[in-house]
């Protein structure tokens, strides 16, 4: 068990920075999920931690020890690959015994451990088989069993569930999280699936184009996304991002969006002096925060022309358009408007997200207790562009 530190780590492939100035601390025993679209640098980050890639700049530390030039086999880590990486010419038993044999252990010492982990993972009757004779789920279990055979300092998992069917993925998600909790081994888990990230990780780190966007516990990242990218990455269905403009109204600052004006709670804005009347903003509206109007709504109401209705069981996804904007709302299950009808939808003013149209950074502090977020948020962001 160990803590992990990335200290201003860069990774270049040729002239292209795959990971840029990554600084991240992972606590001992923590389940950290790296999430982001393909090419965002999450797998490269994991591979640097495993020792399969060398960092171009910066330090990587495991338990305070700099490991940049330490060989993978010397780092005391176990890794589960997206492809499972089972040796096809060996039986399941031999696949599991490969690690102990590589480390020079005798069969007497590792045999019982192999059989025990095989039993835990339900593989006992498959020990003599080759990977080709196993189903996808069984192969995945062998890959996991290989990692679980010993108690390493770190578990690294590179999209281990992406090749499984939906039902099995759900089951394995629970199992991996449970195993991690029981063993308490620090785990770094890479995925592009935000549901996996939200449900499995103690904390999640969202990456884009090699740059760490935000790190936090799932609720924090969901409720207080640092950028429009983070807001769009987390939450199903995806957040609606539409163009709006700031206005000065009777009750202070308001945002004009979808043809209506939403009053912003004063204590939660972090607006700059130059964010004056007419400044353009990106407005984020989560589908769950858009509800059918009841007549006694807290916020303004807009009309949505319904294009599609998707009953999901406990709720209904309603997709429609308001002007040129495509909007998705998550209605209660009993609300099933007819296609092409117009429904009145109310916006909750306490749950409106505002982002700088240029940098995508949040310009609205959504933490209820905190004051305005970092000063000069807008002006700093604009210099980035």
């Amino acid at each position, binding site marked *: 068990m160990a803590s992990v530190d990335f200290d201003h780590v860069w990774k270049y492939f040729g002239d292209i920075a795959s990971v840029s100035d990554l600084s991240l601390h992972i606590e001992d025993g923590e389940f950290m999920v790296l999430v982001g679209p393909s090419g965002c640098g999450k797998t490269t980050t994991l591979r640097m931690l*495993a*020792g*399969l890639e060398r960092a171009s700049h910066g330090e990587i530390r495991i338990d305070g020890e700099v490991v940049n030039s330490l*060989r*993978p*086999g*010397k780092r005391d*880590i*176990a*890794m589960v*690959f*997206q*492809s*499972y*990486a*089972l*040796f*096809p*010419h060996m039986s399941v038993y031999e696949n599991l015994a*490969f*690690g102990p044999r*590589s*480390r020079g252990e005798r069969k007497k010492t590792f045999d019982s451990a192999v059989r025990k982990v095989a039993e835990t993972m339900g593989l006992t009757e498959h020990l003599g088989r*080759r*990977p*080709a*004779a*196993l189903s*996808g789920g069984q*192969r995945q279990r062998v890959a996991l069993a*290989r990692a679980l055979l010993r108690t390493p300092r770190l578990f690294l998992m590179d999209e281990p569930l992406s*090749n499984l069917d939906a039902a099995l993925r759900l089951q394995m998600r629970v199992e991996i999280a449970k195993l991690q909790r029981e063993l308490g081994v620090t785990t770094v888990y890479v995925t592009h699936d935000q549901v996996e990230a939200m449900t499995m990780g103690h904390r999640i780190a969202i990456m884009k184009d090699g740059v760490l966007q935000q790190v936090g516990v799932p609720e924090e990242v969901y409720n207080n996304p640092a950028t429009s990218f983070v807001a769009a990455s987390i939450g199903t269905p995806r957040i609606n991002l539409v163009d709006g403009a700031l206005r000065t109204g009777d009750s202070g600052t308001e945002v004009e969006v979808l043809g209506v004006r939403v009053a912003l709670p004063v204590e939660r804005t972090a607006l700059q002096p130059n964010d004056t009347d007419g400044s353009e903003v990106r407005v984020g509206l989560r589908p769950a925060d858009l509800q059918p109007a009841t007549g006694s709504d807290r916020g303004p109401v807009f009309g949505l022309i319904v294009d599609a209705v998707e009953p999901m069981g406990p709720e209904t996804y309603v997709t429609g358009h308001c002007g040129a904007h495509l909007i998705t709302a998550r209605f209660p299950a009993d609300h099933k408007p007819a296609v092409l009808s117009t429904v009145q939808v109310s916006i909750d003013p306490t749950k409106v997200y505002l982002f700088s149209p240029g940098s995508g950074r949040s310009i609205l502090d959504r933490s209820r207790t905190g004051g305005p977020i970092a000063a000069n948020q807008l002006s700093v962001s604009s210099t980035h562009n």
Partner: protein
Amino acid sequence: MTTHVTAPPHAERRQDRSPLTAGKAGRGLVLAVIGVAFLLPFCWIVFAAFDSQASFAIQWPHPTLQNFADVFSADNRLALWNSAYLSLLSTLIATVAAYLAAYVISRKQVPYTSAMMFAILFLSGLPINILVVPLFQMYTKLGWLSSMNATAAFLAVTSMPFMIWMLKNSIDDIPKDLEEAAWIEGSSLPRVLLRVVLPMSLPGICAAAIYGFVTTWGNFLVPMVLDSDPAHQTAPVVVYGFIGAAAVRWGNIAAYSLVYSLPVLVLYFVMGRITRGNYATGGAVK
């Protein structure tokens, strides 16, 4: 579905036979001519080997086993053994060296890899004959003439370029994840090479080894020039010896050729058996 009655399989098969057309007949004829052209030399070898009055013509044999009795004289048996020793040793050297070279080229970031690979390919096309004279001088200086091991080493070098190409392609096909999984488990480089890469590239290694063996086994010029010791004579040199100034011993040439081609056939069957399906990458990675 229930009303549809499917025809029995043999009925369908009969329907597949389309009528004979002029085009089809023409194609068949061309193929037959090519087939016969390939078959004729084999017929000659088989017939002449058992013929007491063999000549260069294909004729029904006057049955005898005398040709084989001549061929298996002590000297000729030694020549076969010499050929086997030379071929096995050179194949071993070439395969080990080419496997290691191919691994490095395939896996490590070697600068100018593709330029180097093309240079290697060009080398494999270089005719050995133009190398023989300078090589003879070199071996004379080094005192390596009449050394079978030195001859085997040179033959290994000549077959290596093409073997590197074959092996590189077969190592390229092995998913890198497998090696990385082994590294993470603490494997050493020799262990990765022996326990992971080698078993998985076995079909390619067998193919390359067969190629190396066949090129050496059939090489006439190099062993004759570099090793003039009569005790080190190889099989192709013996066949050459059957062509005398006064008479050509056709029957012996045929019988010896037949015996001489057997090891290559055996090798193909054995290697084919080793590599059949056992080590495909099935189940390694999805």
